[in-house]
């Protein structure tokens, strides 16, 4: 029987390596920081910075995310491999995003156009109509 999934650590009471982690006080401080940042980002959204709003909002979101990852998720004290894995996820997502924006951004404009270069008539199927253009489902 394969037993590499042992779960009976309490049979081995010898002290194993101390897992570094934060103290309760640190976690409280972290929560407060996150709440403050939330307040800031909500407040900023009531002010019109134009295109800057997106940047500010995402910037603050990233700070919050980093704080959660470092402290709540223990990356601050873990072996580096975990942080590498986390970063890899975001990095490859970024690659997907970047190339897609290169494609969509360098077409003749993001909105679809008709042959005559004008925006198409955009019609919405009326909510009451049951007949959809799409054929049989499933």
């Amino acid at each position: 029987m394969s037993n590499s999934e042992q779960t009976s650590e309490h049979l081995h009471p010898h002290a194993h390596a101390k897992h570094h982690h934060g103290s309760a006080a640190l976690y409280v401080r972290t929560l407060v920081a996150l709440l403050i940042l939330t307040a800031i980002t909500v407040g900023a959204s009531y002010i019109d910075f134009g295109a800057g709003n997106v940047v500010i909002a995402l910037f603050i979101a990233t700070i919050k995310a980093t704080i959660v990852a470092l402290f709540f998720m223990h990356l601050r004290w873990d072996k580096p491999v975990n942080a590498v894995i986390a970063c890899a996820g975001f990095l490859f997502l970024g690659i997907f995003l970047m190339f897609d924006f290169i494609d969509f951004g360098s077409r003749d404009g993001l909105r679809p156009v008709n042959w005559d270069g004008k925006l198409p008539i955009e019609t919405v199927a009326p909510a009451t109509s049951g007949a959809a253009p799409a054929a049989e489902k499933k």
Partner: protein
Amino acid sequence: MEQQFDTSKIGMWLFLATEVLLFGGLFVGFGLMQARYPQEFIEAHEHLQRPLGALNTVVLLISSFTMVMGVLSAQRGDKKKVVMFLVLTILCACIFLGVKYFEYSHKFEEGLLPPRWYHAQSTDTVRDAAGNVSHGYGTFFAFYFMMTGLHGIHILVGIFLLSWIAVRAHRGEFSKAYYTPVDLVGLYWHLVDLIWIYLFPLFYLIK
């Protein structure tokens, strides 16, 4: 065993990376559509209730706090506190879902739905010559439902996992030497919070 713990953590982080990419795909789609329909997205987001979104953000942040306190308690071998913090986390999750239910009902009532069912709002300015609204409005809500919906499903799964861990903790299955499942579920829960940290500004706050 130290090696077991480390290995489990690596496994969990790998899984979290897959979740980042799963949700990330939706974020990419959202971003592209937002670039295509900027005016529509700005107008559409006015229909979202910012205070409710902010409340949910605060609730989830608190739940992340209670979760990490639960892990800390497990590291200290304090069984009662583990259960308490896990229950608090579940409570926060339920509040979150309650608020979401309220928000969803509002959307359905107002007809703020994907393009096929979208009800034109009086405040929608982007229209064609015949007066039909642009698809951008419906597209905003299509993404709203897809992303908050998928997130909500993850919250539900999280509630289930948290309950399972709470039961096990109550039974005394964890100790100073072995609390790996608490830690792993904690990581999952923090990821759910992380996703919302990005969802919130993109949907509720962007002008």
